[in-house]
């Protein structure tokens, strides 16, 4: 009887421990193709904007190159590539198919293309606080066979709270708007944090090949908070 009790207790403890264990994946298991045949050059496609903020597409387009470049990839020059895509009528990323991907390999020499979808871009104001919430999904596809090499999503919340007296409420409100409305800087920061904590290092980075055992969440999603 004691043995049964002991066994049950051990089993229960094990189940509890399993339930409490953080649900994580090692990067090399989450993205094996990034380690087997790592891409060197990446072409950033014009982001797809599903949010209601019309400007969000430009904030992303102009900030992704730095976020990816700092990870050690050769990022195809954004302005030059976008001007070719515009001229060739391929600026709408929604229409990109495997044939178009193959052409990006052939003409530009890109090993992979980055698809970005802006899902949410929401701002809110109260008298002495404000916030901006950005949610985006990312997918890196192999230009040779359209395989997904890497995918991730992130929600970044930028918030600012003033502890000043309400006597200057109007001034504070305006200052808060200025800080949170510095959309480009906030967007760059969000993309840098996302790439920094979820994407394997590229060939040119000194840490290349050393991050296989770094953990990422099982759901391939992170939430970031930026307090200003």
């Amino acid at each position, binding site marked *: 009887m004691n043995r049964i009790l002991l066994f049950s207790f051990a089993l229960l403890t094990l189940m509890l421990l399993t339930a409490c264990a953080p649900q994580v994946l090692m990067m090399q298991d989450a993205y094996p193709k990034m380690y087997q045949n790592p891409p060197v050059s990446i072409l950033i496609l014009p982001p797809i904007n599903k949010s209601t903020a019309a400007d969000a597409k430009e*904030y992303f387009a102009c900030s992704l190159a730095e976020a990816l*470049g700092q990870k050690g990839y*050769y990022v195809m*020059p954004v302005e030059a590539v976008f*001007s070719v895509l515009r001229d060739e009528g391929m600026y709408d990323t929604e229409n990109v198919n495997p044939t178009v991907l193959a052409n990006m390999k052939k003409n530009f020499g890109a090993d992979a293309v980055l698809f970005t979808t802006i899902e949410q871009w929401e701002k809110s104001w109260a008298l002495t606080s404000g916030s901006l919430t950005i949610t985006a999904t990312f997918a890196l596809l192999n230009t040779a066979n359209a395989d997904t090499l890497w995918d991730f999503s992130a929600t970044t919340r930028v918030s600012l709270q003033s502890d000043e007296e309400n006597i200057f409420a109007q001034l504070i409100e305006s200052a808060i708007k200025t800080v949170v409305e510095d959309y480009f800087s906030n967007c760059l920061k969000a993309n840098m944090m996302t790439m920094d904590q979820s994407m394997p290092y590229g060939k040119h980075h000194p840490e290349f090949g050393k991050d296989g055992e770094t953990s990422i969440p099982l759901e391939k999603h992170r939430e970031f908070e930026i307090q200003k």
Partner: protein
Amino acid sequence: MRYCLGLLFALFLTACATPSYLYYGNSSHSYYRAVKKQDEKSVSHYKASLENVFKRSENVGKPVPPGLYCDYAMLLLAENRTEEARIYFQKEKQTWSEAQQLIDFLMLRYKLGN
């Protein structure tokens, strides 16, 4: 006390921060402004920010980030300074071997030869 704690925290963060692998300065922000405003002043600021990256990168012995020599060449092309544009396209290729195919494609497209 609050000041000391803040300082300690800042020091801790600085100690843990990895130095950036490349130097971008404020070129991304200037690029955004040039795209958004498309006026002479913002384009000129963007050019100056790229020149600053070239200079600082050389001073600290880091490569110029991917694409920036090419972006500079595109700005020179818009001013019809084709010979100088050709030099910067070549610099992109010399710095990053992966740029070869794209730069050859662009030079052909803008009739700059190879």
